[in-house]
């Protein structure tokens, strides 16, 4: 059963929380809703799940209009960002509570409980209360309750955001495997582009209540159709500057220009916005397409395997992200090399040139 949103919009007071949205989610797909805080991820999910009703438009489940159907009567599961379990029930009762309500036979309940518990490694905790578990275990308990129902659609609202780093890595690696071969629609909200890339599937880039782009995750990442989608799907933030194209060259200012390449070659002369991901701006140059930039280092972040430098470029600030450790000094001028073949160009309406 596929899940369809038709012109779904949500207005609260005078504010549009979700602008008219059309979306079709296919069964068996892992879908990521990617967007910053307040982009409308949770609202959109609640509209899909029936926990909130749209101001206009309709939600269809397998072709049937369920806009007015309460969540109790839809075959859905929902996992919240905060670990929500029934505090007064044991882990076992928490997990089987949706099945108890559906009047399933005890044998079937036990069978499902066993396989779900195995999958989420909750075996030894069944008789404890949720507050006696660690954060990761509590969230696994919530996941188990969502999985045991075998729902048509499973909604995961930033399920890993409140876990510490190690647990997040662990659970994130498990998630796609857990949902594989279930045939249910999975919708996963996250604010981290890296997480969307790791989870794969399809991604909807969400910004201020608009879906900027929806498609296969790698497509959305590699070929954003507009500037918003590119910005949503970039961490550290995208580098942008306005450029002019004429004489077959891209001009940033009087002194900085380079020959147009790729899509830029065939685009008409005029004003564009250039955008490039930070890891295509590196402190070491390579290849023919490398364009030398120069800027004063403002902030540097070094992690074990990569260096991030924020430097001033013209009136703005650019970010460079490179593998390895580079000895940047704040305040010093440094050369960076832009890979001109990896640039995105957007017209005055923010649409990508292709």
């Amino acid at each position, binding site marked *: 059963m596929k899940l369809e949103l038709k012109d779904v919009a949500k207005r609260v007071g005078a504010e549009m929380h979700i602008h008219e949205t059309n979306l079709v989610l296919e069964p068996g797909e892992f879908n990521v809703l990617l967007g910053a805080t307040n982009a409308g991820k949770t609202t959109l999910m609640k509209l899909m799940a029936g926990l909130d009703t749209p101001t206009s438009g309709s939600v269809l489940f397998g072709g049937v209009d369920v806009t007015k159907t309460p*969540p*109790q009567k839809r075959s859905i599961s*929902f996992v919240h960002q905060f670990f*929500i379990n029934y505090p007064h029930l044991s882990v076992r009762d928490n997990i089987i*509570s949706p099945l108890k*309500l559906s009047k399933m036979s005890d044998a079937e309940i036990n069978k499902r409980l066993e396989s779900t518990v195995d999958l989420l490694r909750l075996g030894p905790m069944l008789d404890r209360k949720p507050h006696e578990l660690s954060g990761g275990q509590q969230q696994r308990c919530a996941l188990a*309750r969502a999985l045991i*129902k075998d729902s048509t659609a499973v909604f995961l609202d930033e399920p890993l955001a409140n876990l510490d780093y190690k647990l997040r890595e662990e659970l994130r690696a498990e998630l796609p495997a857990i949902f594989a071969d279930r045939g249910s629609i999975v919708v996963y909200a996250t604010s981290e582009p890296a997480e969307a890339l790791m989870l794969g599937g399809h991604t909807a880039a969400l910004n201020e209540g608009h879906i900027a782009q929806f498609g296969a995750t790698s497509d959305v990442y590699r070929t954003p159709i507009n500037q918003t989608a590119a910005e949503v799907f970039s961490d550290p933030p995208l580098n942008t500057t306005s450029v002019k194209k004429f004489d077959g060259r891209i001009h940033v200012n009087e002194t900085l220009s380079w020959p147009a390449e790729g899509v830029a070659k065939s685009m008409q002369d005029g004003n564009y916005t250039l955008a490039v991901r930070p890891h295509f701006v590196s402190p070491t140059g390579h290849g023919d397409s490398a364009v030398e930039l120069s800027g004063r280092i403002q902030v540097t972040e070094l992690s074990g395997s990569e260096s991030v430098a924020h430097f001033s470029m013209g009136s703005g600030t650019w970010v460079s992200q490179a593998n390895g450790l580079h000895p940047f000094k704040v305040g010093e001028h440094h050369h960076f090399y832009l890979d001109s073949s990896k640039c995105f160009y957007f017209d005055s309406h923010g649409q990508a040139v292709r």
Partner: protein
Amino acid sequence: MKLKSLAPILYIIFLMLPIYWLLSMSFKTTNEILSGFSFFPQEWTLENYAVIFNDPTWYWGYINSTTYVLINTVISLCVALPAAYAFSRYRFMGDKHLFFWLLTNRMAPPAVFALPFFQLYSAVGLFDTHIAVALAHCLFNIPLAVWILEGFMKSIPKELDETAYVDGYSFPRFFVTIFMPNIKAGIGVAAFFCFMFSWVELLLAKTLTSIDAKPIAATMTKTASSAGYELGLLAAAGCLTIIPGAIVVYFVRNHIAKGFAMGRV
């Protein structure tokens, strides 16, 4: 160390003295009470208690009081639970004003409402019934219960409600089997305060009753005027009146501490 513990000990003695005096009086004969000053009963007697347990005008006072207090507690909670849920979960027009207005009912002295209630209940034939007193006490107990419960309910995330709906719980089922167990401390505290305020309230209870539903507090004051000074008997009645409150406090003492910690009560 001795000096440090002296202050609280003195304070507790100061607090307990009237209760001790009441207790000791209840075991004395009225003659002994009137004849002089003594710390212990010279002549122990259970006569005062015997009178109370054998004279229907006395023990019916307790039965009447307990009846309307329990009715009131049940009504208050049944009304306050959904009301508090609405206040804690939904924003609606005038919700804050309504909440404030509810609380102001608690602040007005009961005397203000005695006359309208008397007139109203007499007109509809509720005068001198338990339900009349119970309903009258709802006026200040429901706002209080709503206020206490709302504080407890607010600490339960709205996501719990949503999770239950997604799991298939209908609203009533969720409310009774999931929500109420999670705020049972709040329900306990609210029940305690309803019980207590209804138990100690005298003016409305006295005004709205004459014989059939006469509360114990009214019996005590009336006996004092009609049958001379039966001080021993009054003291025994006083001791018995303290007991129900003490029992209820004992059961909810931990929850009250929690209620204080949560900024309500």
